[in-house]
Every structure is written in C-alpha cells, then in structure tokens.
C-alpha cells in the first residue's frame, strides 16, 4: 500500500469513527404496548380511553384515591355496559399500564371509531365536565394531519357532547361544557369527548356524592351508555 492510499484510508476510518460517536438526532423509539384493535369494517365501534395509568397517576382524589384507578374502573364498567347492549368496544387499557398519548390516539384511529370517549376524574367542581377539542373546525383531510386530526370531527364532537349532556340531564347530573386542549384529543380522528367525572356537590335536586360512590359511578356510566345508544341510532355507516 502506497503512503497516499494509507492517508486516504486513515482519513476514511477517522471519519467513520467520528460519525459513530456523534450524538443521535433521532429519538429512540419508545417501546410501549399498542393496544390491539381490529381494523374496522364499517361497524359501530366505541373507543374508551381511561386516562393516565402506570407511572402517571393523574390527579389525587383524596383518601389515597388516584385518578388513574377511577378512570380504569369507569372504563371497565362502561365497556361491560355497552357490550351488554351489543356495542363493539375498544379500550385503550385494561390494566394499570403507562400508555403514551400517541398510542392512545393510534388505537382509536386504527379502530375507525364512531365514538371516542376519553375518561378523566377530578376532585374539583361538581357533576360531569364535558370537553371537546379547542381546534377550529376544518375539513377532513386524507392523509390524516396527525396534530390536528380532530379538526375534521369537531362539529360531530360537539353534537356528541350535546347528546351526552342530554343523557346526563335526564340522570339529573349537573354538567359543565367546554373546550380544552388535552392530549390526545387533538389527534383523534373520530367524534371525541373528554368526560371528566367530579364529585356531586349537594344541590337542590341532588344529594352530595363522592367520586368513589359506586351508585354515582353507575349513574354516570348508564347515562354515557344511553348517549352512545342514542348516537348509534343516528349513526350512518361511513
């Protein structure tokens, strides 16, 4: 080997060593379970997302109760109620597992859901808080614009929110309506409402009930199931 070739080879080796030692610019892929959801074939599917879970406990609800456990209990109860009424349900989690917002949206969008319910719980306020995404309504896009996927469904989400509001009113549960920026709402390509359950403050119609009161949870779940059934009766297969 001639000396010039040796220099060239040396430079090449040096360059490759430098390239390997340079910091990675691409973030490492997060290895987390993606909930299994069958691709929809025109069926009426409801996606229930129990917020938080695993290392993300969510809000503290007093007496050692964590939001992640309340949302999971509500999710399991709602899933059973809906399945008993013949509704296909996909849940994003069935156990106390950490699940990134991205995976939740991925599961919901893969299921091509007719309804997406994101369940939350808080110790503040009274009754049930219903939130839709704060995005401005826009036409649905193909391919999906991931950060603003919900924009194409905002109008339907508001109608779904109204349906749930009516069902809650029928169950005599006070409701607060609003728009909020909460993950993964903006990424959901389905009519989506965040349902936040709060304790029931005693009023002139209702008695006070804690968030862990099973009777209260049952009333909320039944109202949600009634709203979903009502939504299904008007739902047209896409």
């Amino acid at each position: 080997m001639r000396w010039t070739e040796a220099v060239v080879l040396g430079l090449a080796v040096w360059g490759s060593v430098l390239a390997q030692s340079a910091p990675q610019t691409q973030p490492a892929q997060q290895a987390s379970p993606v909930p299994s959801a069958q691709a929809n074939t025109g069926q009426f599917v409801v996606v229930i997302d129990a917020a938080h879970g695993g290392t993300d406990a969510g809000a503290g609800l007093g007496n050692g109760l964590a939001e992640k456990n309340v949302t999971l209990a509500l999710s399991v109860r709602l899933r059973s109620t809906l399945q008993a009424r013949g509704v296909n349900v996909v849940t994003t989690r069935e156990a106390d597992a950490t699940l990134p917002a991205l995976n939740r949206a991925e599961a919901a969008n893969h299921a091509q859901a007719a309804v997406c319910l994101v369940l939350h719980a808080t110790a503040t306020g009274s009754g049930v808080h219903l939130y839709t995404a704060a995005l401005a309504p826009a036409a649905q896009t193909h391919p999906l614009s991931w950060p603003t996927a919900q924009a194409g469904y905002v109008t339907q989400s508001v109608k779904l929110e109204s349906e749930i509001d009516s069902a809650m009113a029928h169950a005599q549960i006070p409701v607060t309506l609003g728009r909020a920026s909460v993950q993964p709402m903006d990424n959901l390509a389905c009519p989506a409402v965040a349902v936040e359950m709060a304790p029931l403050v005693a009023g002139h119609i209702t008695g006070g009930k804690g968030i862990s009161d099973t009777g209260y949870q049952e009333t909320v779940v039944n109202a949600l199931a009634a709203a979903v059934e009502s939504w299904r009766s008007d739902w047209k297969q896409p």
Partner: protein
Amino acid sequence: MISRVHKVLFLIMLLACVVMAAFLIRLRNRAQDRLHAEATMAPAEITEGSPSAPRSVMLYIPNDLDGSMTSVQRSIALPADDNAQARVLLDNLIAAFHAAGSTHPMSVETGVNEVYFLPLPKARGEQASSGRIAVVDLSGALAAAQPSGIEPETLTLLAMMATLHANMPSIAEVHFLVDGQPRQTLAGHADLTRTYLASEASPEANPTSRPGQAAEVTP
C-alpha cells in the same frame, strides 16, 4: 501509478483541509467565549417605573362549580412598564384565587415569575401587526398548587388569558412556561405546549355550562 503532480496536489489539499479545520475550531471557541461572557455579564438595571395612580382593571375569576367566569372590577396601582404591568395583573388574579371564599381556590398567593412580550410573527406580504405574544413564566410553586383536572387547569389558563386580554388588548396570543422551561401540561391535563389565542379566553368565545352562564359583575 500516481504521478508526482497528483501527489503534490493531494498534499496541498490535505494541508488546506487541516488549516481550515483549525481555523473553524478557533472561530467556534471564540464564539463560545463571547456567548459565555455575555451570559455572565451582570444584567442591566431594569426600571419598572414607580406605580402610577390606581387604575380600574378587570379580573376574570372562574367558578369551579359551574365552569363560569365572572369579571370583577378592581382598582390597582400598575407600574408603567408593560411586563411588570402584566405580572402585577396576574399576581392580583392569583391573590383573588387565594382569597377566602374563592370560587377557584388555590393555595398560593403569587405565581408568576415574569411576563415577556414578543411581536407576532407576520406572514409574508403582511403589514406589521400591532399584536403581541405574551410569554407567561409561571412558578413551579403555582403549578404544584394547581388542583389537577381538565376543568380546574383550563379555568386557570382561561382566567389568566382573559385578564391579560381585557386589560392589555394588544396581547393576541399567550404561551405558558413553568420556571422558564417549556412543559407538557400545567398539572397533568391542560396542554402547555401550544400557544393560545387570547380571544379564546373571552367568556363569549367559550361554551357555557348547565346550569350557570358566564356572568359579568361590576360591583
């Protein structure tokens, strides 16, 4: 077989590469030194101006029970400086959250480190806009004291935006930081990664609750 000319040419190019690399490294070191010197320099004295005579301002106080927002008129002495003015407004709002009988209780009395202003980025071909982006740097103590939940967190942000927009109409957008750093959420729910339109916070722009509507009270 490589000719002598090519060998000489190669050596010259190699030498040039080495010289350029050394020159670039030196330039980078000088730039780093300069930035370091600027960062460690004592900040210039900031004069906020003495508070002027008390001025009538509007604070927006949320109600956790029905999600409504009530506007309350207060008389507050505001500094002349815009940044300090915004900070005083928000500190008065947080003090109202902390007051006994508050409809949106919070366990801290203050919670804003600083408010910065940036001009709105203008689109190509657009005239300069008079609107500004307010970057509100909240304290970690406020974030820790914030009750967790979609409703309480959203109401805190909306109240801050509505108060800023009502008293300083040039604020078109608001972005939140916590202790100078970007943060995913305020206390686990409300998204802090996005920049909010200040007009989103006006009670008229927000859907209402049942029962109870956004109210306006001027005692």
